[in-house]
C-alpha cells in the first residue's frame, strides 16, 4: 500500500470541497422561485462585497434568507452524521454502525424533545440534551451488544434496533399525551427536516462540529491500528481506552448536534463512509475528513432533491436519505454474510 501523505489528504479534500461548492451553487439555482445563474452569482458577489442595497429584496430573501441557510445547515448536519457514522463504525468495529441504525439518533431526538418540554426557551439546552440522549443510548447499546465479554456484530445491531424502537415508542407517547402546536411540528422534525433554522447561532454549532471532527481525526492513526486488532494496537503502544473514549464522546456530540437541528436523518452515516472507503481506501486519516465533506455533499444533494422533485410541495430530507440508504444497508449486510 502506498503510504498516505499529507499532500494526498489535502488534495482529495480540496477536490471534494470543489464538488461541494459547485453542488451548492447548483442547489442555490434550483427552487420554486426562478432565478438564472447570473442573478445568483451577482447576488452572491454583492453579498460577499457587502453591497446589500444593490440586491433586489426578493433575491435577498430567496438566497440569503432561504436557500443559503438551508445549504449551510445541510453541510453541518451531513458532516456531523457521516463523521459520527465513521466513528461508530471504528468504535464498535461494525461496518453497519450508523447513528440512525444504532438508535443513537432516536436517543438524541428523545433528549431534544424532553428539553423542549422542560426548558423550551433555554438556548443550547436542546443540543446538550440531544448529546446526553445520544451518549446514553450508545452506552446502553454497547453493553446490550456484548456477548461473553465480546462485541457481537449481530447482537449489537439487534440492540440498536431494540433501542430505536423503544425510544420511538417513548417519543410517540410524549407526542400523543402532550398535545399542542409546538410539538406538532415535531412529526416533521422527526423525519428529518432542514427547513427550520436553529435557535442557537449556526456559527457556534460549526465550531463544535469542527472541534469534534478534529478530535476524531487526531485518533485516526490509532483507529487504523485498533481496527486490525485491539491486542495488537495495545502492543504497539496505543492507549485503546482513551481513543475509544474520545471517539465515543465526539461521535455522540456530532449526533447530538445534527439531531438537535434537523431531526433524525438516517443512513447518511452509513452510506457516506462506505462510499468514501470504496473511493479512497480504508485509512481513517483520509476517511474522517472525506466522510465529513462527503456527508455534506450527500445531504445538500438529498435536500436539493427533497425540495425540488415534488415542488411546490416538499419531502422531508430524511425520506430521501432513507430511499438511497436502506438499499445500500441491505447490500452491505448481504455482502458480509456471504
Amino acid at each position: 500500500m502506498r503510504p498516505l501523505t499529507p499532500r494526498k489528504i489535502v488534495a482529495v479534500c480540496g477536490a471534494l470541497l470543489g464538488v461541494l461548492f459547485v453542488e451548492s451553487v447548483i442547489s442555490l439555482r434550483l427552487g420554486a422561485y426562478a432565478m438564472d445563474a447570473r442573478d445568483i452569482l451577482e447576488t452572491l458577489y454583492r453579498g460577499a462585497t457587502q453591497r446589500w442595497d444593490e440586491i433586489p429584496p426578493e433575491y435577498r430573501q430567496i438566497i440569503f434568507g432561504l436557500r443559503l441557510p438551508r445549504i449551510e445547515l445541510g453541510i453541518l448536519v451531513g458532516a456531523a452524521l457521516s463523521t459520527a457514522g465513521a466513528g461508530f463504525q471504528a468504535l464498535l468495529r461494525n461496518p453497519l454502525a450508523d447513528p440512525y441504525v444504532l438508535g443513537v439518533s432516536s436517543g438524541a431526538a428523545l433528549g431534544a424533545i424532553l428539553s423542549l418540554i422542560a426548558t423550551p426557551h433555554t438556548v443550547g439546552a436542546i443540543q446538550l440534551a440531544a448529546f446526553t440522549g445520544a451518549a446514553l443510548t450508545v452506552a446502553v447499546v454497547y453493553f446490550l451488544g456484548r456477548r461473553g465479554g465480546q462485541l457481537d456484530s449481530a447482537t449489537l445491531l439487534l440492540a440498536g434496533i431494540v433501542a430505536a424502537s423503544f425510544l420511538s415508542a417513548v417519543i410517540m407517547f410524549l407526542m400523543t399525551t402532550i398535545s399542542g402546536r409546538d410539538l406538532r411540528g415535531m412529526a416533521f422534525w422527526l423525519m428529518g427536516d432542514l427547513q427550520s433554522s436553529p435557535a442557537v447561532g449556526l456559527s457556534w454549532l460549526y465550531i463544535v462540529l469542527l472541534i469534534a471532527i478534529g478530535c476524531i481525526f487526531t485518533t485516526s492513526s490509532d483507529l487504523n491500528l485498533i481496527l486490525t486488532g485491539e491486542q495488537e494496537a495495545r502492543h504497539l503502544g496505543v492507549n485503546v481506552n482513551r481513543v475509544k473514549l474520545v471517539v465515543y464522546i465526539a461521535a455522540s456530540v456530532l449526533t447530538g448536534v445534527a439531531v438537535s437541528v434537523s431531526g433524525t436523518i438516517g443512513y447518511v452515516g452509513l452510506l457516506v463512509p462506505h462510499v468514501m472507503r470504496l473511493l479512497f481506501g480504508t485509512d481513517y486519516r483520509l476517511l474522517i475528513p472525506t466522510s465529513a465533506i462527503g456527508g455534506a455533499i450527500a445531504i445538500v444533494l438529498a435536500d436539493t432533491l427533497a425540495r425540488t422533485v415534488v415542488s411546490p410541495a416538499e419531502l422531508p430530507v430524511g425520506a430521501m436519505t432513507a430511499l438511497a440508504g436502506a438499499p445500500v444497508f441491505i447490500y452491505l449486510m448481504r455482502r458480509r454474510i456471504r
Partner: protein
Amino acid sequence: MEMILERRTAWTKLAQVASGLLVCATIALGHPIRAQGSELTPAARAQEAAKTDSSPATKIVTDEAGRRVTVPVNVRRVVSLAPNLTETVYALGLADKLAGDTSYCDTPEAAKEKPHVGAPVNPNLEAIVALHPDLVLATAINRQETVDALARLGIPAYYTDPRTVSGMLETTTLLGDLLGAREQAATLVRELQDTLDALQPQLRERPPAHVFFVVWEDPPISIGQNTFIADALRWAGAESVIIAKQDWPQVSMEEIVRLRPEYIVLISNHSADGGDAAKQIDDLRVRAAWNALEAVKLGRVVVADEEIMRPSPGLVGAIVTLAHDLHPEVFGSAAAKSAALARVAGCGELALELKVETGAAVACAR
C-alpha cells in the same frame, strides 16, 4: 511502525484540513444572516424606508397567538395558508386580493384556480416569496416553524386560532379589519350569528343528541372538547360522547360501544366519494365492528358537510344542516332544511355553494 511514525504528521494535516474547513465555514457564514429588518446594513435600511414611503403606512397589530405583526394599512396581496382562511377571504368578497392559497383550498371552486404554495403543513416558502404577498394568513393547521420562517424573511404573517364558533366569527371580524373589509365583515358576522341564534329556540326544547364524531374511521379518531368542532356540535344541538383533552384523540372500538352514541356523525368526503352520503353510510353498515354499533344498526348515521371541519363562515351552513339532520322532529322535513340553508347562502357576499342532500345546489349571487 511506519504508521506510528506517521502519527506526528497527522497533527499538521489536521491543522491544514481544519483551517481549510474553517475558511469555508467563515465564508459561508460571513454574510449578514437572514433578511431580518434589524440586521440589515444601513444602506439597505434606507432603501427599506424609501420603499415604505412609496407604499402607504403600516400598522402594528397583535395576532391571535399574541405576536405583534407589522402589516400594511392597505393590504393588497394576501396569501392564505389554510382552506378556512381562503374561504373567509372569499366570503368577505376579497377574491381579488388573494394572491395565492394552498393545494387544499377547494372552496369556493375559484380558489382552486389561484396559484398554490403547497400544502398547509409544509408550504413552499419560495413559492410564497414569489407571489410578493404583503400579508400571509396562517392558522392552527400550519406549523410554528412556517410562521417563524416568514417572520425571519420579513413577510408579515398573521396567525389566527379560532377554538369556538364565536371565535370563528371574531376571527372573521378581525380579518375584515385587517384586509379593509370592515363593513362586509360586520354584515356577514351579524347574519351568521342570526342564523345560529335562530336555531336555538327549537333546539332548547330537546335534549342534546349524543354523537360520536368520526374524523377518521380506521383507526377511529374523534374530536376533543376544546376543538371548534365540539363547539359547533353544541350549536347544532349535539354533544360529543368523547371527553378528551387532546384535539384529535384516537379511540378504541370498545370505547365507542361502551359510550353508546345515539348518532354517528361522518364527514362528507367530496374528493373520494363525490359527496355521496348514501354510499358513505352503506360503507359503514358493512364495515366490521362498526356494523355492530347500535346507532349504525338503527340507521342513525348522519353525514355532515365537510365545512364542519373548517372554522370559516361556511361552518354555519354545516351547523344548520347537522341540526336539521339530528333533530328532524323539531325542524321538520328536508324542505325546511333547504329553506334554512338558502337563508345561510344568502348571507352577505357569500359565494359559497352549499350542497343539500337532495342534490339541489343552492348558489348565492347576491
